[in-house]
């Protein structure tokens, strides 16, 4: 004979409790995953920015042949190259810590490279120095959710001769 009985209220309550527990558990997992995903996307953005700036500076140091560096302040420097670019043999670099940007280019025509628009991301320090005929640049980027600070670090030889 066909069983026409529905669920009992106890069965329904037990099912609801189990489904609710699973949903709450999944919600926590998804929320946690979402946070991790966001931090990872922040890290990718800042890594892309660091790569872009590294390429920009290193390509000039290599292709135009870095002849001399004058450090004009704790966060700015002037470079002189053996080879011209856009009719000039010099370039300037300004690290604007408060504005969160790096400005670089031909003297008087500097281009502004802003750090990615990420809440709480900032440039925390900038070090420029010349050590044993190498120009050393270190810019540190911090974010409260990064486990390790990100660094733009370049060591380029000055007056490199074959």
């Amino acid at each position: 004979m066909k069983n026409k009985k529905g669920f009992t209220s106890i069965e329904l309550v037990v099912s609801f409790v189990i489904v609710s527990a699973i949903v709450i558990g999944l919600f926590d997992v998804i929320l946690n995953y979402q946070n991790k995903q966001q931090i990872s996307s922040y890290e990718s953005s800042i890594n892309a920015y660091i790569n872009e700036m590294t390429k920009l500076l290193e390509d000039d140091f290599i292709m135009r042949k870095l002849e001399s560096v004058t450090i004009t302040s704790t966060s700015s420097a002037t470079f002189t190259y053996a080879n011209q670019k856009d009719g000039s043999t010099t370039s300037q670099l300004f690290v604007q810590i408060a504005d969160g940007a790096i400005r670089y280019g031909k003297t008087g025509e500097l281009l502004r490279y802003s750090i990615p628009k990420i809440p709480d991301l900032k440039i925390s320090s900038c070090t420029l120095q010349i050590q044993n005929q190498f120009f050393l640049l270190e810019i540190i980027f911090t974010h409260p959710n990064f486990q390790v600070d990100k660094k733009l670090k370049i060591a380029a030889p000055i007056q490199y001769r074959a």
Partner: protein
Amino acid sequence: MHCKKNKGFVLVETLIVSVFIMMTLSLLYANLVPVVAEYERRENYDSVSMKYIAHWARKMLIDKGKENAFSLVDGYLEVTDCTNYYQDPTFCENFLKVNDISNIYVVPYSLTEFKSYVKTSGRFSRSMQEYIATLPNYENKPNAFRVIVEAKDPTTDVISYGTIEVIR
């Protein structure tokens, strides 16, 4: 009168389907894990900064390296000793220091033999073994070598690797 069949799955049917699904999932997992691991490794090695360090190491080897800097022994050569392998040891020492370089290797362009040597010789660190395993084998090229640099990645401060080809 037609009688409706109300039976569900029997135990054997359920078990067979479960085993089939589990096998498919385990196969997927086994194939996916190495792909993810390789992606992660590639993300950590040969970064833009490491490529530029490798570029300067290559330049130093070509411009300031002695003749013996490309005389491979056991299929590779560690050229980190500035006095033995470079005409300008001071520049070499400064270069290693400012870039936190721990080792520079010159290896053949084709990595097939070097890869198996790294795996079996026990002379290389685990991180180096892992890095080498991620590289393609490459076809042999005349007068071509590879420079492999082991240094602290400037962006992350973690030991990393970078490689670049050298044509002599």
